[in-house]
């Protein structure tokens, strides 16, 4: 299947859902669900995954108004007053001789106010323009770019990527800057949250590098040495730490290189399988038929249920499937690794208890290994 036909097939699959640019968070989330065709198709088709998940009955994630308010408050504090606090950190920690802030905000709202249009393609073009100026060492170039639209080649096709409000401090190399509001207490921030920030920054770095190459420059001009700006202890004073995202960037690069080409992916989507329109014309409420159609369309796409699935918006849906069929994968990666090709709980236990004669090599292995466990346990509980 040719690439163009593949894109058509994926667009058709998207059905009544609008196409949305992928967020850095979503792309970083692909690392949590390696080899999951379902996620890959839904992402390659640019389906708004939160809306899709809500349609099939997954609990919405949601963010607390307080967390949002604090995040906004901290970001404002860091970037107000000509970005004094931010520039100080950029000078101290990144060692860049930045004295003045020239900021450009390319978020949809700002762009539409200035230019009367805010479509993704336009913002991408603006992004290109400003990054070109930064690379050319133009004195008037901005040194801080917020909410750009970048592109990342996924499955052989460039996809629009919209990182969260993010910035580049630039004279020479471009350094990514992330502002988050989880606290850094005594110089120590929650490792899980730091690594999540690092992964999203890595997405951004890779996407910017692709743009830089397209503009004819060396991709190494986008540095993997970033700055993570956090509140200090329990206050709202800004402190920062260097974020070296080189390992995450390498991992993500490997993953994207291994991402199936779009035509291979589209082969998993049979003709005529489409997502419905999320809203019923008239009432505006999602209908049962729409939910059923979405569920059946998703079901066609093979999924790969692992421990990492907990972070995916579709988790509850795939879990219900795994429960319904009684799969071993539902129990997590440990069990799935031990059982290998023996994919259902019933099968594995029957083999363990000698109630079923192993036919394949995988079944023999499972019968032997789990049989040991069953015997050992029976002995111990005698």
């Amino acid at each position: 299947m040719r690439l163009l036909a593949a894109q058509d097939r994926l667009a058709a699959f998207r059905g009544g859902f609008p196409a949305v640019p992928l967020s850095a968070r979503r792309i970083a989330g692909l690392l949590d669900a390696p080899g999951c065709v379902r996620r890959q198709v839904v992402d390659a088709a640019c389906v708004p995954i939160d809306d899709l998940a809500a349609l099939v009955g997954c609990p919405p994630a949601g963010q607390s108004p307080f967390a949002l308010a604090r995040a906004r408050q901290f970001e404002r504090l860091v970037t107000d007053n000509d970005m004094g606090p931010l520039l100080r950190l950029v000078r101290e920690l990144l060692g860049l001789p930045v004295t003045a802030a020239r900021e450009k905000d390319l978020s949809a709202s700002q762009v539409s106010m200035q230019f009367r249009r805010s479509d993704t393609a336009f913002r991408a073009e603006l992004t290109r323009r400003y990054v070109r100026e930064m690379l050319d060492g133009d004195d008037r170039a901005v040194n801080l770019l917020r909410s750009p639209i970048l592109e990342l080649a996924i499955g052989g096709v460039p996809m629009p990527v919209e990182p969260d409000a993010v910035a580049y401090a630039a004279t020479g190399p471009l350094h990514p800057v992330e502002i988050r509001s989880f606290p850094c207490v005594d110089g120590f921030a929650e490792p899980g949250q730091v690594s999540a920030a690092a992964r999203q920054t890595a997405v951004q770095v890779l996407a910017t590098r692709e743009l830089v190459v397209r503009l004819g420059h060396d991709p190494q001009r986008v540095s993997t040495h970033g700055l993570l700006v956090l509140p200090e202890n329990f206050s709202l004073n800004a402190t920062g730490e260097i974020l070296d995202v080189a390992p995450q960037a390498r991992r993500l690069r490997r993953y994207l290189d291994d991402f199936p080409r779009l035509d291979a992916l589209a082969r998993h989507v049979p003709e005529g399988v489409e997502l419905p329109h999320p809203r019923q014309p008239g009432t505006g409420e999602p209908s049962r038929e729409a939910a059923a159609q979405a569920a059946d369309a998703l079901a066609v796409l093979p999924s790969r249920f692992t421990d990492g699935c907990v972070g995916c918006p579709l988790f509850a849906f795939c879990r219900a499937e795994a429960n319904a069929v009684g799969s071993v994968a539902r129990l997590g990666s440990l069990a799935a690794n031990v059982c290998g090709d023996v994919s259902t709980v019933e099968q594995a236990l029957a083999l363990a208890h000698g109630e079923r004669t192993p036919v394949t090599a995988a079944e023999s292995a499972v019968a032997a290994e789990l049989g040991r466990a069953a015997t050992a346990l029976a002995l111990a509980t005698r």
Partner: protein
Amino acid sequence: MENLRTYQMLVAAARRRAVPRTAFRHVHLAARPLVVAGYHLAGEPGAPVALCYGTDPDRMHVLVVGEPRDRTLRFAVLARFAAFLTDYLAGYGERERLVRNTRGGPVEEELCVEAPQLIVPNETTAHWLCDMLGRSLRYLRPDGEYPVDPLLPVAGAHLTWFATRRVIPGSSVVCTGTGLLGTHWQSGQLPTEDANLHALLAWVDPPDGVDAATAALDAEALPPAGPVSDPRWDRDELKPAIEAYGRLRGAGADEDLAATSLRDAAAAALRPAWQATWRAVGLVRALPEAAHVPSRWEVDRAQWTLHLDRVAAGTAHFSRRLDPLRSFRFLAELERRTAALERQMVLDDPLIMAGHVAAGDALAGTVAARDIDHFVINPTTGRRRRRPLLHITPAVPFYRPPGVELWLATNNALKAQVLSTHPDGTVVLRVESGMGRNAAQAEAAVPPVGASVVFAPFGPSETYPDNLPDTLPWTHVPAEVER
């Protein structure tokens, strides 16, 4: 170990109910633990919203901070919690004299009769309450520019002590509901799902006539056990309650009245977590105590005694962060204690030993033949040593090679070596020590024909002298950060 764990997960999924991982309770449970559950403002661990706490499952105390972002109000409310906490801890000052046998002879020590115990719903609450709140309180000053209630830094010091103890393997001064259940039962869900106390409790103790998977799904609809609240609850109940507090205060109402809505909402949201934690305690308390639990609790008591001494002397000092040498020592210490704990749990509990049998490290079987009068001649000295032989028919195939050392699980002094394995699977062991000095003693010590035995790679505990280096080995020197 994965074999048994996986098998237990499969059985739990098939039976639609959690299965026991242990035969005994491996945690000390105090007669009067202090259970604490709470919420903090989303994104702001330094801003508590509510605390529900108490030592009696039927009496839940509730404290709320009507405007969580108001620091003065926050410390005033936390002072009330600090008062309760210090009052609770004051009940653990009584000491007794003990004689301990050490290498240098009998030594008399003073030890607190009992140590306090803090029980929270889950790991993140433990981190928030002990580590974060402890840190935020212990440097406050009762004098100076922003004076606070003097009990606050005291409470902070105590909470920080809890924080340092809770990471030590084998310590029971801080327990979590999820940890209590997860240690003793295996659910049929993802390990990450076990971090949800309500879901895990549904697996261990589902309501009558309901299968665990369905109960766990229902349990997910319960308010979170904390310390982070449900974002929808924040939007629908917390925000209006805080606004109501503000309006009522503005209209002249006093603190407690103004905070009524918030108190009601928080109590309703945290009550399930409170009840679930007590239920977890009750379920684990019902298990018989493992043999090594009292000796581990004695270590907790000794540390508590030391902490009280330091607090009294004003020398309670906590470094903000471990320097590289100290963290290296700390890690090494943690590894040592983890291994020691594992050894104790294995020897105390046949279900845990079963994991090693399943993995092939331990040999479980019956004695097929025994030769007490087998001797080995030392080639240089020519002296005869009694080295009884045992032929074991394994219940589970055993493949470890000759030379591997094993100890009898029921009598840790008896050490044996794998001599060979016959084609039919029979394992030949040669007893190296612990057989006594003569035939009669050997007869008594070495298991007879027909006995069911377990031989495991866990010998008597060794004391590790602290010969850790004063300078860092090169593997632990931090790399220079490149600019």
